[in-house]
């Protein structure tokens, strides 16, 4: 794959891949790091990309693996609280704070779901992929995706009903 083809086919996926990384890491700076790593990885493996049938699905899988690696790495390296507070006060913008609020809401929803349902929820509800695309990305069959999505929605609906009816 030439630089021109890479710019045409792969670089436009930037926003989509960023959002997917963000939906996994729930951290804007970590998602940016993942994106940078993923594009360098894709660039170095650009000759393999020519032989991939669904390039977007392949890229999504790489983002997923890279994001999970980054989360694992971060867990091994605890950050000092003082440094985090300094970073927030010095660089936080209105957009970032709004993002943080939104990410917090998403975190609360995702926490309620088992792993497979969570992954399908991310791809369908947050990324807008169809069931067929999710099947290809996660290597699952049609009924697994359909049932997991239905169950995930049931869990979320129950949660919403609880808040409406009982204020829980």
């Amino acid at each position, binding site marked *: 794959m030439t*630089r021109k083809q*890479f710019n045409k086919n792969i*670089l436009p996926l*930037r*926003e989509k891949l*960023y*959002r997917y990384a*963000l*939906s996994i890491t729930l951290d*804007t700076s970590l*998602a*940016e790091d993942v*994106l*940078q790593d993923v*594009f*360098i990885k894709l*660039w*170095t*493996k*650009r*000759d*393999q990309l020519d*032989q991939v049938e669904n390039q977007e699905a392949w890229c999504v899988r790489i983002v997923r693996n890279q994001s999970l690696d980054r989360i694992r790495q971060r867990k091994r390296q605890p950050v000092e609280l003082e440094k985090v507070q300094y970073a927030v006060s010095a660089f936080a913008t209105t957009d970032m704070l709004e*993002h943080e609020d*939104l990410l917090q*809401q*998403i975190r609360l*929803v995702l926490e309620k779901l088992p792993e497979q349902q969570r992954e399908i929820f991310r791809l*369908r*509800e*947050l990324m*807008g*992929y*169809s069931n067929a695309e999710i099947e290809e990305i996660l290597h699952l069959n049609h009924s697994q995706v*359909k049932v997991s*999505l*239905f169950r995930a*929605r*049931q869990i*979320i*609906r129950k949660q*919403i009903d609880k*808040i*409406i009816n009982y204020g829980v």
Partner: protein
Amino acid sequence: MGSKEIQILVEKYWAGKTSPTEEAKLKAWYSEHADGTDPETERYFSMLGNFAKIKSDPSISIELPENTSVRRINQPSRFNYTYLSRIAAVLIIAMGLTLIWKMQPNNISTATTEEVYTQEEIQQSYEEAKSALLLIASKLNKGKDAVGQLDKFSETKKRISE
């Protein structure tokens, strides 16, 4: 799109029967038309809708290395292991030959029988060889006699047939 139509779509959504296009409509509608009648559902769909609007930081550019070497799939590695193994085999053979050459005694070809064995040992070997040859000769003569008798028999048989 009216709110009644949205209500139908919401029910369809919870039943898992909406398409991604219909879901996109729901997210877009709740992001713009939140009237507070169903705050939790509104919050849920607007959350999904707002997430789709998030963009990466445009100030962070993705820098691709200019001259990254790419190894093609199925292409053999530049390091030729076959070539290396051939060199190793030649070296091992050469070392083995050198070792054998060094282990050989230098004077073995120049030494004479008198220098290696005593006169007594030579005499004893001569006697043993002589007795062995005499034994073979006596057995050979015995066999020769039997063959002579056979010759006489065949000669007689020839005369009768004539």
